[in-house]
């Protein structure tokens, strides 16, 4: 199961990422936001590192931190066109995400799956050829019947 990151650690991880950001990006983020991130991060006891040769998308970053970085990008760095593009992308991704969740957790699908399994089992049972096995006593009885020509 995926670990849910605590807020203080998310803020610390995001600050570690922002520390590598272009100065132009930092200039656009309001001081109060940075300050607040730092206040919250002060409670964190985690240390975060970055892989030197990897792009931001390829870095190992928690899902929470990715969301917070995206939120900061949308709120303070993106221009109007980029905001529209992002909203479209987020809505589209949301549909895909919800569809995946529905597939995973939809009770109808779960029952449907069970029912199918049950039916398949029933059909298999119905059509199965049952092998007749003659027991030892039956063999003896049958031999006696043959001997006295009893049908």
């Amino acid at each position: 199961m995926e670990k849910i990151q605590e807020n203080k650690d998310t803020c610390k991880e995001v600050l570690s990422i922002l520390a590598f950001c272009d100065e132009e990006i930092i200039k656009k983020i309001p001081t109060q936001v940075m300050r607040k991130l730092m206040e919250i991060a002060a409670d964190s006891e985690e240390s975060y590192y970055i892989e030197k040769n990897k792009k931001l998308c390829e870095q190992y970053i928690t899902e929470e931190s990715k969301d917070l970085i995206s939120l900061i990008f949308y709120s303070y760095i993106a221009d109007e066109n980029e905001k529209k593009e992002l909203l479209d992308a987020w809505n589209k991704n949301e549909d895909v995400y919800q569809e995946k969740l529905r597939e995973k957790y939809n009770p109808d699908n779960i029952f449907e799956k069970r029912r199918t399994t049950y039916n398949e089992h029933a059909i298999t049972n119905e059509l199965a050829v049952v092998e007749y096995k003659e027991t030892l006593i039956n063999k003896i009885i049958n031999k006696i019947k043959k001997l006295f020509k009893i049908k």
Partner: protein
Amino acid sequence: MLATYPETFDIMNKNHIDLFHGTKISALPTIMRDGLGSFDSLRQKGTTVLTGEEYSRKRGRPFISVTNDLDTAIDYSSLSVSGQKVQPFGIVIGMSSEDIKHLRHRSIKTDCIELAVFDNIPIEYIKMLAVPEDKVEFVRKLINNERIAVTPMELDVNKRFYGWDDLDQLIISEEAYIERMNDKKESKLTIGKDDMKELAEGRHKSGILRMYNKIKNMIISRGKDNGKDSRE
């Protein structure tokens, strides 16, 4: 430093900054909240010590190590993790011996000359944070404290182009200077707008909204902001 960052030298001169402590940026949030604490005092408070000082980690030290040797402080700030993983950058904290003399302290000699400060150093005593040139804006915003000067300083010992000979004469290596200037032009690990956009495009709406509400609630619950936002 006088040659590369004269403004930093001026700030140190004007504010009588003559004691330094080198650490990593990851320690800054806690320092800006609690001031500088010794390894032992942080451990007693249950705070995990995140940076440097392997010696302190192994043996525990009931004091904060400061030095009047800027190079030693820079060495501490430059300690890096091996391999491909890196922490953002180092910082050198500047203080004045005029302030520190009010705290319990003693000169000690380990493998370098240190001043052991036995009390915690309050944030009011921190007068300067020296950081790499391209991180000045970031740290200024982060601390948002006009009383503390954030100034540029070359913290990578490998890029230092000056030194001293046996007679304490300053020597400048032209070769190292040119190398350093070329290195400044090279692209470093820098995250740009396109990188952030690429990351953001892969997210979905409910995750973003969940994060927005989490941050808003956190700010409200800390009682330092009303959490109202026109973008809501």
